[in-house]
C-alpha cells in the first residue's frame, strides 16, 4: 500500500494566449500518490484540476517539472492510465459491447477473449442485458457505467476520472458512488478523481487535494480517515465537509472579487464553529 505510484514534482503549466502574458494554469504542484490510493482533486472551475489530470493522463504536456509513474517518466497517453470523462464519450456507431472491447482489441487481445472480458465488466456494472444496444438507447447514468466498464476492462493501474458524475442527477450519482467504491475496494486501483462537489470528494476519497485558483495549484490536503464503506451521514465526514467548505469559500471570494470588483463580499457566517473545536479561530 505504501508504495509510491505517481510522483509529481514542481509541475508548471502555462497556456500562451498571447506572446507576452501566458496564463498560468498550474504553478509549482508537488504531490505524491500511493499505490491503491483514492485521491480527489477538488476545487472551483479554473483551478487547473482537469489540466493536472490530463497531464497525468499524458493528454497534455507539462511546461516544466517532472512526473513519474512507477518511477518512469510519462511520454504521452498509455493504457496503464485510462481516463473516464465527464461525458461518456462512447462511440455512437458501435454497440455497447464493441465500445467496451475497443481498447482490448488495440491491446491485441484475441477477439473471443476480449468479448468475454467485456461481458464480464458489463455484468459488473449491471448492464449485461444492454451489450447489444447502441449508446443512444441508454440513459446518462447507463452511458457513464459503460464508460467506467470500458476503462476498467483495460485493467489499468491508474484510473483517472474527470468529473465523471457531474452531468448526472443526484440519485444516479449516489448509486454510482457506492458502485465505484465497491469496484475500487475489489480491484485496488489507484484512482484520481476530479470533482467540484465537496460531498462527492469526502464520501469517496482517502485524501482530498483542495486546489486554488490564479495561479492554479494546491491549497491544502485533507486526509479522510472515516471507515469504509462510507455512510454519507458519518459525523466525521460532515465535519470535514464543513472545514473544506470554509476554505473553499475563501477561495471563491478571492475569485469573485477579482471578477466582479473589490466591492463584492461573500456573505460568510464568520462565527462558524470550527470542527476542531477551536472556536472562533477563523474570525
Amino acid at each position: 500500500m505504501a508504495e509510491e505510484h505517481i510522483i509529481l514534482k514542481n509541475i508548471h503549466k502555462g497556456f500562451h494566449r498571447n506572446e507576452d502574458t501566458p496564463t498560468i494554469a498550474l504553478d509549482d504542484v508537488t504531490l505524491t500518490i500511493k499505490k491503491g490510493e483514492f485521491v480527489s482533486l477538488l476545487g472551483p472551475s479554473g483551478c487547473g484540476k482537469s489540466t493536472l489530470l490530463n497531464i497525468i493522463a499524458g493528454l497534455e504536456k507539462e511546461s516544466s517539472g517532472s512526473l513519474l509513474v512507477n518511477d518512469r517518466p510519462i511520454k504521452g497517453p498509455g493504457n496503464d492510465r485510462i481516463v473516464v470523462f465527464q461525458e461518456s464519450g462512447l462511440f455512437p456507431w458501435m454497440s455497447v459491447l464493441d465500445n467496451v472491447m475497443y481498447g482490448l482489441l488495440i491491446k491485441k487481445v484475441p477477439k473471443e477473449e476480449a468479448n468475454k472480458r467485456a461481458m464480464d465488466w458489463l455484468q459488473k456494472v449491471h448492464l449485461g442485458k444492454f451489450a447489444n444496444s447502441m449508446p443512444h438507447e441508454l440513459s446518462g447514468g447507463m452511458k457513464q457505467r459503460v464508460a467506467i466498464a470500458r476503462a476498467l476492462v483495460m485493467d489499468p493501474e491508474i484510473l483517472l476520472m474527470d468529473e465523471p458524475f457531474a452531468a448526472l442527477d443526484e440519485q444516479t450519482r449516489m448509486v454510482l458512488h457506492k458502485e465505484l467504491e465497491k469496484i475500487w475496494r475489489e480491484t485496488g486501483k489507484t484512482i484520481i478523481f476530479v470533482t467540484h462537489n465537496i460531498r462527492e470528494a469526502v464520501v469517496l476519497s482517502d485524501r482530498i487535494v483542495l486546489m486554488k485558483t490564479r495561479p492554479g495549484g494546491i491549497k491544502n490536503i485533507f486526509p479522510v480517515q472515516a471507515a469504509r464503506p462510507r455512510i454519507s451521514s458519518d459525523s466525521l465526514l460532515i465535519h470535514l465537509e464543513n472545514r473544506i467548505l470554509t476554505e473553499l469559500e475563501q477561495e471563491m471570494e478571492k475569485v469573485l472579487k477579482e471578477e466582479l470588483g473589490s466591492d463584492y463580499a461573500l456573505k460568510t457566517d464568520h462565527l462558524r464553529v470550527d470542527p476542531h473545536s477551536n472556536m472562533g479561530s477563523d474570525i
Partner: protein
Amino acid sequence: MLILIAIWEAISKFEVFPSFMWPPFIIPNDPGGVTVVKTLVNGLISGQLLLATGTSLWRLILGFVIAVIIGLLLGFLIYKYKIVDDTLGFFVTSLQAIPNLVWMPIAILWFGLGVESVIFIVILGAALSITITSSTAFKSVPPLLIRVASTMGSSGFHLFRTVIFKSTVPQQIAGLRLAWALAWRSVLAGELLGGSGGLGTLLDLGRSIQAMDLIFSIMIIIGVIGSFIDNFVFVRLERMVLKKYGIQTTP
C-alpha cells in the same frame, strides 16, 4: 401526374404549338405519328437510348469515384494541416463559386472533344464539393472521442480509421449526396457541349434534327435516374446511418 399528362395532351391536340415543338405524349395526333412514349419505348428496345444511358452512367461513376478519393484526401489534408487550410482551403472555396460548365472550354482545349473533357468536369465539380464537405466534417469530430481513443492507446492511422473517419460518416454521406447531384448535372452538360456520346450528345442531336419527342424522352430518363439514385441509394443510406448513430432528425 395524370393531370399533367392530360394538360400536355390537350395542348398538343389543340395545336397551340406546332407538333414538332410540342409532340403528343401518349396518343398520336395522326395515325402512326410520333409520341414521346413511343420514342422512349422504341429507343429503349432498339438499344440506342439504353446505350447512351449506359455511357453517361459509366462516365458519371468513374468520375464520381475519382472525385470521392480526391475530395476525401484533400478534405483530410485541410483538416490536418493548418497551412493547407489557409492556402488550398481558401482556393477551393473560391473555385467552388465557379459553375462547373464554365470549365468546359478549358477542358476542351486541354483534352479535346471527348470522354476526357466530360470526366474532367465531373471530377472537378464533385471533388471540390466533397473537399469542402469532408474537411468541415473532419473539423467537427468531437475532441472528446479523440481523447477517449488516445487514452485507450489508439493513435495514427488506427485513430483515423476507427474514430475520426467513422465519426464523420453521416456528414460524409450528406456530402456525397450533394456531390452526386452535381456530378450528374456535369456529365450531361459536358456531353451536351463536348459531344462524345451519351445522353447529353443525344440531346444535342435531338435539337439539331428537331426531334422534340427524342429530347423529351431523354429528359424523362435523366429525371428518373437522378431521382432514383437519390431516393433509393442516398436517402436510404442516410436514414440507415442516422438511425445507427442515433441522430435525431426533425420530422
